[in-house]
């Protein structure tokens, strides 16, 4: 028989917060790995991070990208990150909170970035994703469209694409869609 019975009483006492403190908050392994990712962040000057729920909730944060070149120069784009307790086994869920005219980001904020879905690997980290997001703005890609119209314009008429992006960032209409000013 396993040595079961002597210790159960004691464990129950320990577990029962006998000293009157608040219940122990469970730390998931994902949270700890994330702690490492965050404490080692090395962001480009164009990107910053903030923690809307305060310094202790690392599982939900926001990343702001301010491109310093390309079509989106001068714009400010905010992404929300939601990290699972089994991170990095699963990639974070990333959404673009700023409505953007972009071939790889749809109007609901879904982002088509390979490392967020099909090419995610546990060796990747938050830093890699942020760099990936940044590159979406310097190199929008018409071959992986989420916003079909924007992708077609980028491919067929880069000049028009450029002026559409400027109009969207200034808070105007592109086709039927009204964008919010983000510059």
């Amino acid at each position, binding site marked *: *028989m*396993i*040595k*079961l019975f002597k*210790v*159960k009483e004691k*464990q*129950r006492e*320990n*577990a*029962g*917060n006998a*000293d009157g*403190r608040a*219940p*122990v*908050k*469970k*730390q*998931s*392994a*994902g*949270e*700890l*790995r994330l*702690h*490492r990712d*965050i*404490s*080692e*962040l*090395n962001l480009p000057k164009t990107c*910053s*991070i*903030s*923690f809307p729920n305060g*310094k*202790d909730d690392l599982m939900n944060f926001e990343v702001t990208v301010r491109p310093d070149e390309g079509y989106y120069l001068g714009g400010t784009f905010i992404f929300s990150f939601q990290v*699972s*307790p*089994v991170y990095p*086994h*699963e*990639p974070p869920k990333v959404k673009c909170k700023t409505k953007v005219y972009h071939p*790889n980001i*749809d109007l*609901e*904020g*879904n*982002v*088509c970035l*390979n490392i967020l*879905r*099909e090419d*995610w690997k*546990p060796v990747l980290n938050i830093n890699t994703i942020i760099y990936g997001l940044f590159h979406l703005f310097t190199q929008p890609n018409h071959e*992986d*469209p*989420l916003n*079909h119209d924007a992708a077609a314009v980028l491919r067929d008429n880069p000049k028009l694409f450029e002026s559409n992006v400027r109009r969207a960032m200034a808070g105007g209409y592109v086709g039927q869609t009204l964008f919010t000013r983000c510059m």
Partner: protein
Amino acid sequence: MAEAASTPSKSRDLDKLLLRPGNLVDPNFEPGTELRLALQEQVKVLVVGAGGLGCELLKDLALSGFKNLEVIDMDRIEVTNLNRQFLFRLEDVGKPKAEVAAKRVMERVKGVNIVPHFCRIEEKDNEFYSDFHIIALGLDSIEARSYINAVACSFLEYDSDDNPREETATPMVDGGTEGFKGHARVIKPGFTPCFECTIWLFPPQVKFPLCTLAETPRNAPHCIEYAHLIKWNEVHGGKAFDPDNSDHMKWVYDEAVKRAELFGIPGVTYSLTQGVVKNIIPAIASTNAIISAACALETLKIVSGCSKTLSNYLTYNGVEGLHTKVTEFVRDKDCLVCGPGVLVELDTTVTLQKFIDMLEEHPKLLMSKASIRYRGKNLYMQAPPVLEEMTRSNLSLPLYDLMDKVPKDILHATGTINKDNKKSSGLRKLRVVFKGIDGVTDMDMAGGA
């Protein structure tokens, strides 16, 4: 014994295992009726999950002589469960699985007492889980396994030489099935790899590129994921999709059907929709039965010592013919969940800054630029600047105060490890003990993550 002779029926087969000595038994095995009685009267087993595997586990454990069982599950019974979750009937649809499963097994197996818990596993505190001698898992999610694993490992204690104290380990038996494949494993925290040591065994979920879903769907799962990930947000805006809400699931199914018709793709069904959205491969009743039987047997062996236990991971594959294999995985020495961590003894006056400096000198750590996290709180973060600023004022405070004057506890440090003139990034578990506090000895030191 006379009683055994006069009651030939129920425990006859069990008695062959529990009442007779053997060659392949555990060193602590003491055959006899006392053991049988202890098994029945004293041992408390928790079954986590009352789905396909959980139903089997409850029934198997009850028939194996365990009389004190509890079961926890947050789900209600759905029509699609009835083909394999054999404890449930049509009139049970909509009722909590845990409650119906407990009732049905108690009706069928005389003398067994099963306490159901209809709630999420996170709603129960450590005190609840610490009550069980062994935990059997019949789950289909990695998150849930990871959670129970962390709870069970938190009961493990290490001595001052980093040896696990066997009597504090709460063993787990974990089963899992996917279609015709399955696994059964034994986790004894501190002795065999825990779930987190080998999380890589679970293949990551297949995630289709969003642009494929949006532009060029080629099969039924593409249509379903389009409805689930893209169309849902388009129509419902900020409202979160809840996979356990059948109205939500029905909506996704209807949209997937429309999408499939548009592209001339066959094969979208309601159960496939559930499977794709919840990442579940259709369950096969026979696989559940086989895996559960293996788990119940291991539970019996661990508790009684009547035979050597599985060491430590059995895979079963019934896709073509039948193949089983046992693999002995090894522990991750640095596992943050089940490992001992590095023991650090401190005076109560040591400030956080001093502590961080000490980690650089500590021979087992050699960690510079450490960031420190304690019980879900960031005591100090080296980066990013926004968090460094918010935590900087802690540096001058005594660590003892920052840890709420707890005499001994676990904290985590992440930083640069300087070993053999090489720098690498590292995340370490630390067992901090404050010297000179009443009632604390080096000997007992809680483990866990």
